[in-house]
């Protein structure tokens, strides 16, 4: 029943456990920090941030708004006040620079739930399960906007588990837990990385926001790649790796430019050969790439 799912094994031997989990730990700390910022008010009376993931006010000055929710509001026929517009512009602007789906990997509270589900799924050795297409989330995104327009209401917020989990924690709502549990079970037993990778329209919109993001992962040392496939095993969107990692023969850029890459950095953690690194989309040597090291070992 159990499988030997240990994609970081080689990296741990090579670099040691902390280095093989550095980005993962950084991400968890960021996610928890965001959560604590929101919970410090209701739990400890320390009001740094008010509100939740949908809209918030930091230190009574900085407004932040979820651009996706505001977009639905537009479609529903409401022109929001300036505060919300500024908030959404700030959020969209930041993610446009650092990668839209950085939200998914570094901020979204559901990431811990779905990552845990994925871990359990792999430990149980379950097959891929229901494979919906990755474009499905774009269809769902379009659908939510259409329902918002037809119904004159912010449709997705009625069921959105991403904002629900924060709302549930910040305002102590019990019933939303059911949705989180359902989602966990869905990702474990129904579809591998099903929610974040195929269905969630929030991630789909953030991906579109970050389509020209500056911060990107590069497979700069791809000539060192020994095809261990560990990066594919940990990557939540493994299809983004191939064009960059396997592009050496085609003189393709080593930059992972796919909008679905969430800059989670897990590929860097598990790579024993240190193939990957963070870089800017403008910071790569011009084509063709110099093959510096010795030619690849024969398989």
């Amino acid at each position, binding site marked *: 029943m159990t499988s030997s799912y240990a994609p970081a094994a080689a990296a741990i031997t090579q670099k040691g456990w902390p280095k093989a989990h550095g980005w993962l730990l950084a991400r968890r700390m960021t996610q928890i920090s965001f959560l604590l910022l929101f919970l410090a008010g209701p739990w400890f009376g320390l009001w740094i941030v008010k509100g939740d993931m949908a809209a*918030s006010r930091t230190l009574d000055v900085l407004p932040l708004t979820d651009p996706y929710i505001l977009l639905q509001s537009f479609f529903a026929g*409401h022109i929001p006040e300036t505060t*919300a517009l500024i908030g959404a512009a700030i959020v969209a602007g930041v993610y446009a620079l650092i990668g839209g789906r950085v939200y998914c990997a570094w901020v979204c509270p559901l990431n811990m739930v779905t990552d845990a589900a994925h871990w359990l799924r792999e430990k149980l050795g379950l097959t891929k399960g229901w494979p919906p297409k990755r474009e499905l989330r774009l269809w769902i995104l379009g659908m939510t906007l259409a329902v918002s327009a037809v119904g004159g*209401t*912010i*449709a997705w917020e*009625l069921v959105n588990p991403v904002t629900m989990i924060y709302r549930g924690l910040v305002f102590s709502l019990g*019933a*939303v837990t059911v949705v989180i549990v359902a989602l966990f079970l869905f990702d474990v037993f129904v579809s591998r990385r099903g929610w974040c990778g195929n269905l969630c329209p929030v991630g789909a919109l953030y991906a579109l926001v970050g389509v020209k993001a500056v911060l990107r992962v590069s497979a700069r040392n791809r000539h060192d790649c020994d095809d261990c496939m560990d990066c594919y095993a940990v990557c939540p969107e493994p299809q983004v790796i191939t064009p960059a990692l396997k592009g050496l023969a085609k003189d393709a850029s080593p930059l992972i430019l796919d909008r679905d890459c969430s800059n989670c950095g897990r590929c860097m953690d598990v790579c024993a050969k240190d193939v990957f690194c963070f870089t800017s989309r403008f910071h790569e040597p011009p084509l063709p790439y110099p093959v510096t090291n010795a030619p690849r070992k024969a398989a």
Partner: protein
Amino acid sequence: MSAANKEQGIPGISRRRFVADTAQTACVVGIMGLTLGIYARQAKSMPATAIRPPGARAQDAFLGACVRCGMCVRDCPYDTLRIADLGEAVASGTPYFVAREIPCEMCEDIPCVAACPTGALDPGLTNINDAHMGVAVLVGHETCLNYLGLRCDVCYRVCPLIDEAITLKTISNPRTRKHALFIPTIHTDKCTGCGKCEKACVLEEAAIKVLPERIAAGKMDAHYRLGWEEKAKHGGPLLEGVIDLPDRVPGGAGP
């Protein structure tokens, strides 16, 4: 994927597959959309006891404007406002209050409206006395103590707009034939719907309740005119030469 097949030069299969795939996805998403749409429509209905915060836009517009951030709830100093949990009759994540539990204290600076980033609570509302969260209605004519001829008056006394939103209308008590009934009478245009009257009602189940305006208030047709008002405005009869016959009063009383 299907687009890639097309490029690889197997047009027959890839076209068929592309159409089938698209139809499949469209149907799945269509069913999701339908379900969500029906749910969204049902979410628009509100229980009559749930009152939106001051300045809230009409229910239809409100659900298109409220992003469910809960900042109005957070800034309410009296914990009047609460946020709807999943599965409640009120749309999940939206703010409301139940007057019988904690009514609106009508803060002068209206912190809930100030907190709203989107305008779901209208920032144009600057005087809380202009709020129309709902309208109080004396629904329990058989149980209201004042209706029974007693002097409870509690709803009238707690009203922040005493003698404006609630007045006491005296009529003869037909039971004793010598006392008066002091009927609490709500003036819809002044009532803010704060719910202090409902909260204060001494009965086990409040005889006075705040209801949404669409349920609680009647509306005259636009062309209706009240003769006596028109007459007063005009400063005399509107038609000259109409003979005013004496009113017939039972028992031959009268002027």
